């Protein structure tokens, strides 16, 4: 169902966000209008999500926004919290990042969409039912109305969230990292949805670190760096001829534009498996699969999420035992020289432990000197000040680099990078892989990378193993 077009444009001018006396976001200004969506690009920690929540009026406690945010001629910042709240859903809707976390796990999606009609628009339950059905059918979930969030894929959850915003009938939609953690196929479908929103005459503001998403959405692109909008202009222009250095690096960081790595011929196999098969419950992930990773080569496994990519890596590491098939790891090589990088960097660190502590313990355990750690920190562009922070106080890129550092200290022969950069912005992604490729070249590390980004795999991998769904 089409949203009534009530608003023509959103104008942000001189927007700043501060916590106490420290300013986090500085004079951000842009305008988005019908048919001309805006996409904010930037590393995580650049302040783009804060801008989104400033517009929404849902900044975390302790953060204050100043400046002007005009929806047509109403200044959103000037209104009381009650009016702001009254605007939620009806006028402005936000597509949450990681929607599978944003949906109530104990309620069928029918309920979660229906309640909007029931309690926001005060429709009768029967009417609400039909509307709900319509909304979900429109996003292609007509047959799953009775499903619980945990029974839906990430993309489906995202679409369910979209159905919610439709139900609410908002005409300004803010998509906050809508493709975070989604594989290529799902990502495209979500982007497709967002385009339709624009076609239906909604105002769209998208927050992302994925350049392809920005490109696909068109309209205007803004690039944010350390809380400032360093570049703003039409999509094509920004993507072709970025003016600001960071913008340039950012655009250049798109895997599509990388230079292929020059690798020496690979050495002997460090980890190999023959005739692997694994099933989860009813589903067979793979059957009779062969794989080998040799020193100094990069092997990539690509495929949609849930196809068992990660499981293969874990089998090679010996974390999972296959139902059938045999695994050989290079003999007389210590177990600790087989390492792994995780998709979500914070998840790979003890949340309560300052990085210094963890690193120190590691060095002590293996009798390594601090100097070595410090040296590589320098090389990986990690400041000493990070050491005293907890994992959740460090940006994803930095943390992932730290994880690599941690792994490389043990001089691994095999490294399993499990979606190691899917949650990072292009720049960080590029830095991470630069380090990894260097390690492969210099130390003859065997790298097994699992990803859903075909482009990335094609750019880097010596061999690619494609898994069907």
């Amino acid at each position, binding site marked *: 169902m089409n949203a009534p077009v009530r608003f023509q444009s959103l104008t942000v001018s001189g927007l700043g966000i501060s916590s106490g006396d420290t300013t986090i976001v500085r004079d951000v200004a842009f305008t988005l209008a019908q048919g001309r969506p805006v996409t904010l690009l930037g590393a995580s920690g650049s302040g783009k999500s804060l801008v989104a929540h400033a517009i929404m009026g*849902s900044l975390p406690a302790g953060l204050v926004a100043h400046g002007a945010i005009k929806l047509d001629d109403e200044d959103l910042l000037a209104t009381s919290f009650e009016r702001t709240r009254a605007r939620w*859903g009806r006028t402005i*809707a*936000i597509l949450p990042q990681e929607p599978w976390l944003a949906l109530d796990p104990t309620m069928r999606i029918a309920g979660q969409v229906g309640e909007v009609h029931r309690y926001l628009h005060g429709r009768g339950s029967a009417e609400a039912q039909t509307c709900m059905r319509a909304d979900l059918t429109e996003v292609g979930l007509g047959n799953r109305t009775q499903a619980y969030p945990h029974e839906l894929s990430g993309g489906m959850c995202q679409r369910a969230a979209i159905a919610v915003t439709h139900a*609410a009938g908002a005409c300004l939609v803010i998509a906050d990292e809508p493709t975070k953690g989604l594989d290529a196929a799902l990502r495209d479908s979500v982007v497709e949805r967002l385009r339709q929103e624009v076609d239906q005459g909604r105002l769209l503001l998208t927050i992302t670190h994925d350049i392809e998403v920005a490109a696909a959405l068109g309209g205007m692109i803004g690039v944010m760096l350390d809380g400032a909008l360093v570049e703003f202009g039409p999509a094509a222009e920004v993507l072709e001829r970025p003016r600001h250095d960071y913008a340039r690096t950012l655009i250049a960081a798109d895997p599509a534009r990388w230079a292929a790595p020059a690798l020496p011929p690979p050495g002997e196999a460090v980890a190999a498996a023959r005739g692997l098969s694994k099933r989860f419950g009813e589903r067979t992930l793979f059957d009779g699969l062969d794989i080998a990773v040799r020193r100094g080569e990069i092997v990539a496994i690509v495929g949609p999420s849930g196809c068992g990519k990660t499981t293969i890596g874990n089998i090679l590491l010996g974390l999972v035992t296959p139902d059938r098939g045999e695994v050989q790891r290079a003999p007389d090589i210590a177990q600790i020289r087989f390492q792994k990088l995780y998709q979500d960097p914070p998840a790979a660190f003890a949340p309560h432990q300052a990085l210094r502590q963890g690193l120190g313990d590691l060095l002590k355990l293996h009798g390594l000197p601090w100097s070595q750690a410090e040296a590589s920190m320098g090389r990986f562009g990690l400041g000493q000040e990070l050491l005293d922070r907890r994992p959740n106080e460090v940006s994803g890129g930095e943390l992932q680099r730290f994880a690599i550092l941690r792994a490389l200290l043990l001089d691994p022969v095999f490294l399993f990078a499990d979606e190691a950069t899917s949650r990072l912005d292009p720049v960080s992604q590029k830095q991470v892989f630069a380090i990894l490729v260097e390690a492969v070249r210099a130390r003859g590390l065997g790298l097994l990378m699992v990803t859903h980004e075909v482009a990335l795999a094609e750019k880097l991998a010596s061999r690619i193993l494609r898994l069907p769904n």
Partner: protein
Amino acid sequence: MQRLVLARLLQAGLVVLVVGILCFVLVRALPGDPAMRIAAGRYGPDANITEAAEQVRRELGLDQPLLVQLGTSLGQLARLDLGHSVVTGLPITKELRIQLGATLWLSGSALVLSLLLGPPIGLLAGLRRGGWVDNASLGGAIVLRSLPPFVLGLLLILIFAMLLGLFPPAGYGTWRDLALPALTLALGLAAVSSRVARDAVAAVVRTPYLAFARLKGLPEPVVVRRHVLRNAAIPVVSYLALQAIYLIEGVVVVETLFGIPGIGHALVHAVIARDVPMVQGTALAMGLLFVVIAAAVDLTCHWLDPRPKRI
């Protein structure tokens, strides 16, 4: 689902077996001549106990070897025959009907009362953390938790029975008699459950799905009713289960204070008088009750929270 039920059944079986044997062995292992104890239990502290004890011994065959007696007692259990109390001579089933019944009434109404008090307060406190409700309820909870039940009971009697004359200070039979003992227990329970509820709500409020529910544009009352309540209920329910257990055996003091013919009271007397069948019966009833409650809670949680979980 079936696995869950099966597990519970297995547990029930084990409970019966273990409780049966344990009660017999333990009670019999206790120092002192059971015949004497039983005689004292029967004929009171003025009677000629030594003489009476000999009759008891003959009557109950306490002179037979222990294993033989254990056999008979377990045999009875196997035939689901709880036997007769060796003190009152009444069939255990009757005793339980009266005394467990009384206790169930008492603790049942206490549970209901505490549910009316605790969780709602916890909800308010959790929604406005650090607000006056939060602090006040914390204070109240601490006071109530630090009062021994019999003191609390006495205070309630003084206030409601003496000062206001609303309820009788003691007795058993009508709902008026039940009011004060139930309140005594309920306050103790609410003290804790309100805090559990408060923390549960606080946790839910900080979840992204609640933030989204708000951003959807739902009015706060709806958000609370449809999203906070259900999700916060999950930990509270599983907590209440444990409470219910402690409640049923924790009532003993309240029972003696308010003159209620309850199971806790009966259990104390049974142990003192070495009334093995009574102890067995009581323990069994409580054990099975526990299994039932636990199962009920499992099902409730399953209904509240559809997410798959391993048992």
